């Protein structure tokens, strides 16, 4: 599955992600961002808990001086009221946020994904499951919504 580009919009991996319930929920007192799809009213809230990078965030170690955008993402959660594509994208976005840990790798991934979904950039292997959505312009928003919320929360904090 990983090596094959899916053609069907509702392929097995997308459906499995959407049904998984993975990373669903909130994080108390954590920075969050909400995005709404004006077309259908779907909503996605992404919440992120940052952890200071090792060596800088210790006790009395000047954590307040460390920009959160340079901090590691320790946990990411989503609350999504949306279609299969939106929920699957929210699971993927929060998973990748934790896997990359944030910072530049995540920012590059988010920019690359925007380009990929506009059909202007290379297909990112870790997000290739969304390739069938690219020709469906109206549905691109469904997939991008959680990633835009993630970008908001990461960039803002």
């Amino acid at each position: 599955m990983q090596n094959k580009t899916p053609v069907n919009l509702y392929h097995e991996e997308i459906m499995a992600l959407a049904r998984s319930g993975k990373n669903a929920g909130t994080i108390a007192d954590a920075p969050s961002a909400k995005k709404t799809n004006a077309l259908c009213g779907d909503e996605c809230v992404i919440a992120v808990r940052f952890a200071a990078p090792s060596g800088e965030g210790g006790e009395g170690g000047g954590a307040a001086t460390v920009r959160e955008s340079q901090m590691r993402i320790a946990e990411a959660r989503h609350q999504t009221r949306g279609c299969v594509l939106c929920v699957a994208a929210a699971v993927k976005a929060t998973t990748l946020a934790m896997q990359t840990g944030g910072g530049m790798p995540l920012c590059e991934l988010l920019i690359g994904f925007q380009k990929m979904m506009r059909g202007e950039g290379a297909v990112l292997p870790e997000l290739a499951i969304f390739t069938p959505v690219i020709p469906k312009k109206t549905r691109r928003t469904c997939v991008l919504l959680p990633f835009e919320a993630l970008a908001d929360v990461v960039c803002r904090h």
Partner: protein
Amino acid sequence: MTKTKTAEMTAAAETVRGNIPLLQKSGEHYLDNAATALMPQTVLQAVANYNAETRANVGRGLHNFAEAADEQFAQARATVAAALSAKNDEIVFTSGATAGLNLLANALGQTVAKNGAVALSLGEHHSNIVPWQIAARRGGFAIRFFRLAPNGAADLEEARRIIRGASVVAVAHAYNVSGAVNDISALAQIAKENGAKFVVDGAQYIPHGFAAPEKLGADFYVFSGHKCYAPNGIGVLWGRKKSLAELPDAIGGGGSITEVCEKGFSAAEPPRRLEAGTPPISQTAGLAAAIAWMQNIPQAAKENARNLAQSAREELAKIPGARVLFSGGGENAPNVPIVSFVVEGAHPHDCCQILAERGVAVRGGHHCAQPLMRALGISGCVRASFAPYNNDKDLRALVAAAKEAAHILRR
């Protein structure tokens, strides 16, 4: 129903279908007519003829092209007026029902007292809610809503309670989600008893039959061309002559005045007073042709569309997980052929996408009726809307694709 009757209806639908070039080119099962209806050849030709043969602006020029355009424009107004059993000077051309409602909300909103209210039903399209909300924000008055009955039409008892003391009542003739046709005469009577102006949104009704707004008791009536086989960008606002004349100024520009000086202006008489700027002239040619075409749609084809919708209601309800919204139909609850449904656990856009991949064009989402969606406890639904050119193949494709969607998407 007899076999002969069924055969008659099927044949009528196929005849109407033969008039629609897009359906000759494509095998699409087009069931999104409540959003935009397809244009027959005569309408396409009328628009092309105007642009090829006259093209000029109206009400201004003295040359030959201008005179021909004026003639065509006046004829279009007369055609619309006759269809609505109205007088020519009661017909205002707009860019659509939304524009008509905005114009009315802008104008009538100025007449509502600060402690007054506008009454709407919960089933209204956003185009009959948001303009009033904007006017209310400016004028400081309240917006009050009355709910729908289980058959999807306005609950008249609650309407009577909510309308009390309102200055304006605005309601759909037929709803875009439930398809139910409101008892406009009864609502008009309630509005009249309260001294309220009565505005009717006919966008979903007119495609299925011409209304006589004056006879129904309306003060104003709007509809869009694109839902009744005419081009985009054309709509009609009908108003009683006196009601139109009494509207406060809400729009201005070229053509809407008799004189302008540095100190102010004198407004023209309606309808031109309410048609500032160059009107959608080619679209009026298309609208007139569409009305002429609609007047010739065989009754059997219209019945066929209603029967297809009723069959869709019954067949969709049998799909595990599918739920048809509103009871529909019946002698006491007339409906336009619109069927809305949800598949439990599935998002309407996912359903629509799967239907689209199988060549079935339907609409999904909140249908610009979010207050109704909230009242129903759903975020959206799927809507199939039928026209006299739809046939049994369209129905079967809808049901088969909906079954597949339910199978793929149910969680």
